[in-house]
């Protein structure tokens, strides 16, 4: 998108001020955090799942929509984060909740380590390259006894803790993740790094000519998104207490992320919020139809690409000029 088009469009877009947006996020988070007062354990479990799946999708959106890095192997980081937390906690007896930052660092570190290799691949080749690594991780973990091989492992530490407390703690972790993936990403995208990411996505040569280091910008984007994805993976599996390689390193995770992001609108923060709602409504509605349900997700992806490649929120934004999380900045 050229600068000219941005400035012309921006004048039509109505976006609330950043302070108002963050205040709104804060209120929503407070309401969610207080929700256990009114809800039972089953509801909490569903909300945990919704929020962690939303976090997966939002990290994928950060990569594909803002960093221009589409990866079909993000389930690698879900698995890595979860295994990191389970293995360390089970071996040392450490409280898994304190290990969440470790899971983040481990996944981000893994992403940093593989970047020199996978950044040699572009576009679809990059997407599949990371996927191959996820396959390698799945095959490796399935073979190693100390990682529980194919049958996986259970989280020991939370067994002896107070169950109500564990459920609540898991819930608040998920709420915190949801905040990080909306307000946190909003702040990230309006920061220097965020603007550099978008500039690199839109025009690599122009970004480089403006003094942006293209490689390092992508590197930070990839490491942050993958780290948060790993953190969400650890939080997700901590809330279900059990982990196995076939489920953690399952490529269907990417199918879900992709569905949520592109239906909602890739490259917008609102899109995945909308997409997550649609995904869980559809899932509840089509429960028990097995493969038909997955086929429908695929068909929805195809239809979106043909009708409105920017997804539902992209269409709404173009038509009505509404934007809540605006990462654009107007030149004074």
């Amino acid at each position, binding site marked *: 998108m050229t600068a000219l088009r941005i400035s012309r469009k921006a004048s039509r877009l109505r976006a609330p001020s950043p302070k108002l947006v963050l205040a709104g996020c804060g209120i929503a988070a407070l309401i969610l955090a207080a929700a256990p007062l009114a809800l039972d354990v089953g509801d909490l479990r569903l909300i945990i799942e919704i929020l962690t799946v939303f976090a997966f999708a939002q990290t994928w959106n950060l990569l594909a929509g803002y960093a221009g890095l589409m990866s079909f192997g993000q389930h690698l980081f879900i698995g890595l984060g979860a295994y990191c937390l389970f293995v360390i906690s089970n071996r040392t007896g450490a409280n898994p909740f304190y290990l969440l930052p470790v899971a983040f660092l481990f996944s981000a570190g893994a992403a940093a380590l593989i970047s020199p290799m996978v950044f040699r691949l572009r576009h*679809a*080749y990059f997407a599949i390259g990371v996927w191959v690594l996820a*396959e390698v991780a799945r*095959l490796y973990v399935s073979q190693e006894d100390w990682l529980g091989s194919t049958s996986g492992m259970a989280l020991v530490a939370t067994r002896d803790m107070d169950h109500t407390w564990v459920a609540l703690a898991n819930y608040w972790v998920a709420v915190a993740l949801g905040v990080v993936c909306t307000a946190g990403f909003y702040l990230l995208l309006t920061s220097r790094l965020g603007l550099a990411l978008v500039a690199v996505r839109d025009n690599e040569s122009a970004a480089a000519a403006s003094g942006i280091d293209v490689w390092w910008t992508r590197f930070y984007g990839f490491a942050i998104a993958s780290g948060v994805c790993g953190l969400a993976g650890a939080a997700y599996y901590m809330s279900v207490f059990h982990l196995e390689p076939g489920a953690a390193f399952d490529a269907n995770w990417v199918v879900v992320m992709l569905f949520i992001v592109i239906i909602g609108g890739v490259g917008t923060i609102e899109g995945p919020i909308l997409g997550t709602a649609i995904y869980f409504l559809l899932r509840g509605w089509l429960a028990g139809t097995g493969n038909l349900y997955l086929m429908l997700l*695929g*068909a929805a992806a195809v239809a979106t*690409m043909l009708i409105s490649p920017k997804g539902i929120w992209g269409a709404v934004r173009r038509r009505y000029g509404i934007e809540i999380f605006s990462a654009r900045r107007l030149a004074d």
Partner: protein
Amino acid sequence: MIWIETIANGIFLGGLYALIGLGLGFTFGVMKIVNIAQGDFIVAAAFIGLALAPWTPGAALLVVIPVAIIAFLIGLALQSLLINRVLGKDQIPQILLTFGIAIILRNGMVEWFGANSRSIPTGSLRFASFSVGGLRFGVLPALVLVIALCLFAALHWWLRHSRMGRTIVATADDYEVVQLLGVNYRRVYNIATGIALALSAIAGVLLGMRGSFTPYSGVDRLLIAFEVVIIGGIGSFWGMFAGGLILGVTQIVGLKFDPTAGLMYGHIVFFLILIFAPMGIAGLLRR
């Protein structure tokens, strides 16, 4: 001695892998598009081959001909009805579109055919063997390698010497300029996708005869195709063939050491090559 046999079997399998890679590499070479659904089309071709197999009794291999024709037509339809509508500078819509098609195909096959593992019957060919210098080899795997080689040579020749082939090469070089010469590049794309799917379909049927497949095999097939293209060096014909052989040999030798490893050693060799020779085999030779 056993090692010679193992490596020979790896080479036989590698020829097929090369053929899978050829379909993916050809589409990318011509249109700069990667068809993520390629792996699932390969499995679908194997199912079509399975359905048509009773019609060619006695000459099991002939079934690849009708399957290739059907795959060519599917390719034409896929490109003209769907992919051509999302062409553009941004690659994300094309990649996501084919990813969506892959999901539909895979789960559709599970729905209709079930998740069981199958194999295309080849009659007496299945256990036929020949011996060279005291070593025994299967006739079918060797035949399959010969077919793969012939298809590589035929495509190579056709692209250089036929009118359509040259048009495809010219479109691959610059799709904007060829329009000045009266070429409708979208039509060229349709034919290129048709050819790519026909080649992959042949590979899919032959893989289904040599081994077994399930509706979920498409992922492995896609990853193999992708690795063949990268190992060979993007855009290099015979580099891809060598890439296929390397992967085939690695996999068979790896399975000898570690029978549960699956494709793991192939993936690892792929990453080693990506680190030490990022431009692939063709890049090494060009230096």
